[in-house]
């Protein structure tokens, strides 16, 4: 199938400042693409470029197989939901939703019919005569989505649509957007700085930093095989443990040595051979370190570690230890017997390990 959105070699400069550098992304119809990164990484600018609200410096943008690089926003067959919702304050909800159709000269009967459909779908029928100022945050969010839905576009664009909502409502709306995506089977591009939103919604994630694409992949790929230290650290909460270590070849496997303050170095054996330099950074997610006896498998290695802190979080208990000069967090089961200041035998699942080069941060395995 032809990609619904195809961005090639996109550059965007403001004067001499490069905001976006050599962006290449393509998505298939029905994909949910999430652009994620810290603030100032250029993700919103990229979305505005896709919408045609910002001109690009070089490169091309195809939507639905047509080159849209020079086309004005209204002719790109897109709909956009903004962070501040951007509802027209003096118009009623109904007028807000139908404004685009009115501008394009759609006849009144079609307008009314589409308005009813969308209002029903989003359950905002009883709000149609109110002004945006009389709505709550969640209701405004729905109206903004209604304005996008009524357009029935090739591509939906969302610019941090949930960031103005409180935590509980945000989770609700997140589920609703996901449901909407599944029901409509629509193609969506979604900008967020929240990595949990990215993981839960996306079929494809683009991680951006400083205007450069760090990694493109499915949520599982991004989570399990981060391309570099930045992605490893940015995605996942609590963050991946990144521990400086020394690697040496050991027969068919690799021996990993991690220094410890005031104790013998921790030595682990990875049964897989890797072509590693001597100095590496070992990455292991908190859930890949368990209490000994609770994790089995051929790649699991156990070692005694000094526990510094125990943080019960209900479903799990997080314990913090110190390895290679770094804090290391492990996710244990809720009824763990771990006590601060005591040794505990931890199981490291080396089947899930990532290795990174300390100098440029790139993934090694």
């Amino acid at each position, binding site marked *: 199938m032809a990609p619904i959105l195809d961005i090639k070699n996109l550059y965007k400069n403001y004067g001499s400042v490069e905001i976006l550098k050599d962006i290449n992304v393509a998505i298939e119809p029905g994909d949910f693409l999430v652009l994620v990164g810290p603030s100032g990484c250029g993700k919103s600018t990229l979305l*505005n470029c896709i919408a045609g609200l910002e001109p690009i410096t070089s490169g091309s943008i195809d939507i639905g197989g047509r080159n849209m690089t020079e086309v004005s926003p209204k002719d790109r067959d897109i709909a956009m939901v903004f962070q501040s919702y951007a509802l*027209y304050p*003096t118009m009623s909800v109904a007028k807000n939703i139908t404004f*685009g159709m009115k501008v394009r000269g759609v006849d009144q009967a079609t307008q009314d019919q589409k308005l009813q459909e969308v209002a029903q779908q989003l359950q905002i029928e009883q709000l149609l005569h109110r002004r945006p100022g009389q709505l709550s945050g969640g209701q405004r969010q729905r109206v903004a989505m209604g304005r996008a839905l009524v357009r029935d576009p090739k591509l939906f664009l969302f610019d941090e649509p949930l960031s103005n909502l409180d935590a509980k409502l945000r989770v609700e709306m997140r589920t609703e957007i996901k449901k909407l995506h599944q029901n409509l089977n629509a193609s969506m591009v979604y900008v967020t700085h929240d990595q949990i939103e990215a993981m839960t919604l996306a079929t494809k994630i683009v991680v951006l930093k400083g205007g450069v694409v760090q990694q493109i992949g499915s949520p599982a790929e991004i989570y399990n095989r981060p391309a570099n230290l930045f992605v490893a650290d940015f995605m996942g909460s609590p963050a991946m443990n990144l521990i400086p270590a020394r690697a040496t070849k050991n027969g068919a496997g690799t021996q990993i040595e991690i220094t410890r303050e005031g104790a013998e170095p921790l030595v682990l054996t990875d049964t897989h051979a890797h072509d590693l330099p001597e100095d590496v950074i070992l990455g292991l997610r908190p859930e890949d370190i368990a209490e000994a006896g609770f994790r089995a498998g051929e790649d699991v290695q156990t070692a005694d570690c000094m526990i510094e802190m125990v943080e019960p979080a209900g479903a799990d208990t997080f314990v913090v230890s110190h390895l290679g000069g770094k804090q290391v967090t492990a996710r244990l089961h809720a009824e763990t017997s771990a006590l601060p200041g005591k040794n505990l035998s931890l199981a490291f699942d080396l089947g899930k390990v990532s290795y990174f080069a300390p100098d440029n941060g790139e993934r090694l395995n």
Partner: protein
Amino acid sequence: MTDIALNTTHGPSRNWGKLALRWLLFTLLGIFALFYLMPLFVMVTTSLKSLEEIRTGSLVAFPREVTFEAWRTAWSGACTGIQCEGLRPYFWNSVILAIPAVAISTILGAINGYVIAQWKFKGANLIFSLMLFGCFIPFQVVLLPMARMLGIMGIAGTIPGLIFVHVIYGIGFTTLFFRNYYVSIPQELVKAAKVDGAGFFRIFWSIFLPLSLPIIVVTVIWQFTQIWNDFLFGVSFSQAGTQPITVALNNIVNSTTGVKEYNVDMAAAIIAALPTLLVYVVAGKYFIRGLTAGSVKG
């Protein structure tokens, strides 16, 4: 708990102090109000007296016999130089001068402000600064170049010429008002409307103008007061027959022969000031609301 106890023991004395302070405050405010109302009082009473009574009576006394003769004279009989038609023709000159000048400068200011605040282009800030600078150029500086311009355009000494002058001079202020009002409106509104397919004027007309009532009122009051009360441009760029009311008022007061008709002068001054007063009374509450609209959200 402690508060209630304190109140019962020290309550009465504290209340007396509060009351005394309040009385002092109101007395002082009353004195100030009287002080400011005094000239108006003298003007109104004098305009209702006959010349005979003005000569013999006290300045601050109520009229013994109320007569509207002075008002009639001021409106349709007082002499400005050699003509004796009163203020009436000049009043209408001012009306047909002020209404288009206010309307045009307000519309241009709204469009300018909309462009500068919401359609940022290269050099927008520079242009805005230059327009602001225009607000502070003293009238006297522009008199000669403006006279030359009006001559070249062939509208010297006409009412359209005066409208032109006031529109040019007013654009700086009206742009400032609208720009400051529109700059607080999120830019995403324009983006959303662009995606919806609306163009430059459609967005202005359907989204921004309906939001603008408070600032339109502020601008209209400001411009109307400026243009109606203007004397320098009026006296410089008009000729017999096109003079605005302020110039005519000056001529009436200065061109009496023999006895000075204070009652007519006072009546004429009140007539000249009435329209601006009326505008404040009708739209005053919007004025305050509009002025504070940008600073305090809500």
